[in-house]
């Protein structure tokens, strides 16, 4: 049974899963016969978008099925297979394996560490239940050792800390220490770096890599992030809707993909160098491809864009000027002067100055806590506690939306991060999209409906979505509807706050497509707020790097990426995972 996956390597496998199937309690099969083999000291990445069943497959290796799922069928053998099929082991024997022979690193350590237990005790507990070490003193020694292995302080005071006293990266390293504590032969890692900033992610990945190699542990690395895969995995298995559609060595899968889904997935991943053209992706989720080529597609794309009449509006052909030059030209669309905001002692924004011209797209890059969302909300008037000034076409704006004129409100539109939160679940799409029209005094219902339909057409949703509610829409469709609400009043500036971070990469690609089209077609300016530096060359002509409420690097996208001035930008660029 296991021969087909064994043949390419003579080393005994650490774990062998064959034809694993999982059904929901209701009897719907969500994992359709998945097979893979893990080798000691090597890491297999299980890649897929949300809902592909990758976590279910990973947990099935441990004989664990989440609530709502029935016990799976198929076989999972460990090592020489003498334990028998994990999926059929009695609970007591399974417990003996979990944490000892096969261990787990959770996705979100903030939820998976017991908040009221000291971290040292949580690691010791694993050792104690598996009777590793004869005495508590011996176990304490092991705890000290594994904490050092993951690069954490290991003094008794540190071990007595509670999870909330650690940063996210430290919590995740505690999770990894716990997984390695009993020296397992297999380790399942469930998106362990999601939610960490790139610098921390790099450290955590390095730790995992080193430990797996040193202790000859076989790793199953579950992720949606192909760039991370390139960094850490020896082999890749690509999952789609409960099936593994492609499986092979990392280089082969990433650079010579065989399956069309893998190709589409890879094409959707934004790369820092801007070599790949994100967008114009073949439809993965039923979303439409881009009609107008993007500004930073293939290097010579600017000369092959006959679709746009007014070539100078193409962002890609914008003259690369420094901010100082542009100030002299015309009145900028948007100008921020010494924008500051503090909550008590904490300075969230600390003197922000920049300007944005018509038709220009600027990326505001920053990690969580950098103040990027606060900044974008100040511009949109959602946060009125700032000092300094925001000018639109040379006129100073009132601070809050309610005190701004209806015309000013129309000109600046804001799209929220999560499409799951930005649309009222009880109202139809047409009602939600129509709100801005209603508030700017268009009371004729028929006219409003026409304009709404027009906006929905622009985001390629069309009439059939008008009377649906957000609950019936996918994440990408919802985000399109939210963008339609921002477009319905023909704004001059679109502020996009992390609008793709809650979406899968293929959906992200189609949203990027959409934004670029809108920008070129309507000469709209855009402020694109994100934490993902890899998007830079795909969306913006200019790049502002925000750190602790200050703009630390600013210039054209190429300038900043090729020649970063600030150490923070350099560090970010050094740590971005990439596969090229």
């Amino acid at each position, binding site marked *: 049974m296991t021969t087909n996956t064994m043949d390419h390597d003579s080393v005994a496998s650490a774990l062998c899963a064959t034809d694993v199937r999982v059904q929901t309690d*209701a009897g*719907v099969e969500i994992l359709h016969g998945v097979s893979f083999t893990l080798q000691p000291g090597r890491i297999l990445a299980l890649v897929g978008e949300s809902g592909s069943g990758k976590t279910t497959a990973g947990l099935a290796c441990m004989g664990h099925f989440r609530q709502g799922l029935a016990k799976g069928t198929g076989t999972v053998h460990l090592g020489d297979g003498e334990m028998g099929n994990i999926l059929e082991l009695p609970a007591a024997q399974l417990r003996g394996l979990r944490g000892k022979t096969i261990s787990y690193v959770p996705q979100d350590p903030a939820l998976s560490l017991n908040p009221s237990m000291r971290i040292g005790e949580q690691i010791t507990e694993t050792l104690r239940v598996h009777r590793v070490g004869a005495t508590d003193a011996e176990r304490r020694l092991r705890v000290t050792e594994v904490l050092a292995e993951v690069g954490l302080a290991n003094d008794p005071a540190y071990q007595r800390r509670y999870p909330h006293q650690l940063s996210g990266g430290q919590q995740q390293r505690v999770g990894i220490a716990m997984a390695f504590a009993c020296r397992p032969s297999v380790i399942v890692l469930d998106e362990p770096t999601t939610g960490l900033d790139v610098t921390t992610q790099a450290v955590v990945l390095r730790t995992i890599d080193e430990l797996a190699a040193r202790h000859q542990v076989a790793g199953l690395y579950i992720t949606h992030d192909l760039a991370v895969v390139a960094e850490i995995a020896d082999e890749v298995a690509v999952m789609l809707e409960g099936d593994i559609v492609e499986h092979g060595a990392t280089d082969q899968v990433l650079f010579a993909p065989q399956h069309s889904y893998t190709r589409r997935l890879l094409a959707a991943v934004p790369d820092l160098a801007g070599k790949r053209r994100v967008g114009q992706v073949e439809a993965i989720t039923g979303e439409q491809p881009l009609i107008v080529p993007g500004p930073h597609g293939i290097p010579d794309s600017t000369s092959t864009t006959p679709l746009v009449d007014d070539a100078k509006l193409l962002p890609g052909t914008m003259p690369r000027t420094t901010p100082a030059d542009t100030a002299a030209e015309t009145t900028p669309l948007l100008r921020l002067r010494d924008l500051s905001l503090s909550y008590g002692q904490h300075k969230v924004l600390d003197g922000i100055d920049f300007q944005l011209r018509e038709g220009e797209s600027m990326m505001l890059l920053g990690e969580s806590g950098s103040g990027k969302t606060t900044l974008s909300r100040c511009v*949109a*008037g*959602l946060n009125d506690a700032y000092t300094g000034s925001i000018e639109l076409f040379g006129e100073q704006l009132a601070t809050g*939306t*309610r005190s*701004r004129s*209806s015309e000013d*409100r129309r000109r600046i539109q*804001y799209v*929220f*991060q*999560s499409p*799951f*939160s*930005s*649309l*009222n*679940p*009880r*109202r*139809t799409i047409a009602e*939600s999209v129509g*709100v*801005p029209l209603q*508030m700017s005094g268009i009371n004729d219902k028929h006219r409003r409906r026409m304009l709404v339909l027009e906006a929905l057409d622009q985001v390629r949703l069309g009439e059939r979505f008008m*009377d*649906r*509610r957000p*609950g*019936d829409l996918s994440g990408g469709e919802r985000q399109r509807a939210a963008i339609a*609400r921002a477009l319905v009043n023909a704004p001059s500036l679109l502020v996009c706050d992390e609008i793709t971070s809650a979406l899968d990469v293929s959906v992200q690609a189609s949203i990027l497509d959409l934004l670029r089209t809108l920008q070129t077609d309507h000469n709209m300016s855009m402020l694109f707020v994100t934490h993902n530096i890899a998007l830079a060359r795909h969306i913006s002509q200019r790049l502002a790097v925000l750190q602790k409420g200050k703009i630390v690097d600013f210039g054209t996208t190429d300038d900043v990426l090729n020649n970063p001035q600030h150490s923070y930008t350099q560090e970010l660029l050094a740590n971005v995972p990439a596969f090229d």
Partner: protein
Amino acid sequence: MSTVEEVVAQDPVVARPPRLLARMMRQPQAKLGMVLTLVVMFLALAGPLLTPWLTGHTSTEFTGRPFTDIGIFGTDNLGRDVFSRFLDGGLRLIVYAALATALGMVVGVAVGMTAAYSGGRVDALIMRGNDVLLALPQLVFALLAITVLGPQGWVLVVVIGITHAPRIARVTRSATAAVITEDYIRASEMYAVPKWKILLTEVLPNITGPLMVELGLRMTYSIGFVAALSFLGLGMQPPTADWGLMINESRIALVVQPWGVLLPVAAIAVLTVGTNLLTDSLARASADMNVGNKK
């Protein structure tokens, strides 16, 4: 399992609240609750009309000697027909309970939504005021009011409504607080939609689940509360026929004339169990729906 297409094909214009009720009624315990509630409601509402016609007596008329077994269920301590008094005794209880619940809901929902939406000092002030009212148990508060104002109908309704209000306000406030952090509220703020309109069109439709559960819960409590006050002799006053009062008047003679106590006790029990079964299934339906919305 219906496919996604089918779900979409079913008229998507249908508003969510009916769906909530439909989900609720799908549960067997909701059906049981509905039957129990309707039976007692019918008895209480139609009873006063049926009394003379069914039993030949009004509820306050003396039909004979005390504790005889004349009539279907005999006579009470003053010789009045027990069955007539039973049929006539539920209407006021239910009307008072419903009025008190309605009053409490209106005041509590308005106060709770205002507190959550205003935030800051207004919120703190309202919630501290709530804490003061909560510090007196409902019954003690009611007794204090009855001492001062006397046991009249409007006093009962107002005092029960007022004591429900802070409890309802608390639930409303936390439900509202969860909703107003959603971005669609921020979006409405951004488009300068008037605040009252945001509360009515954006917030209220999204908290109907918890509010309806609260409505059911408060109705159940109101029924028990009005009945308990009458049972203490501080609610409905003699010679009115009332279930709570009947229990008070007849309980000493439980052995001699059990019907005088058992009929009203059973009616109150069936009614409150019925409303609570409905409320509980509503709560489940509402919780399921929230889970469904997340994904």
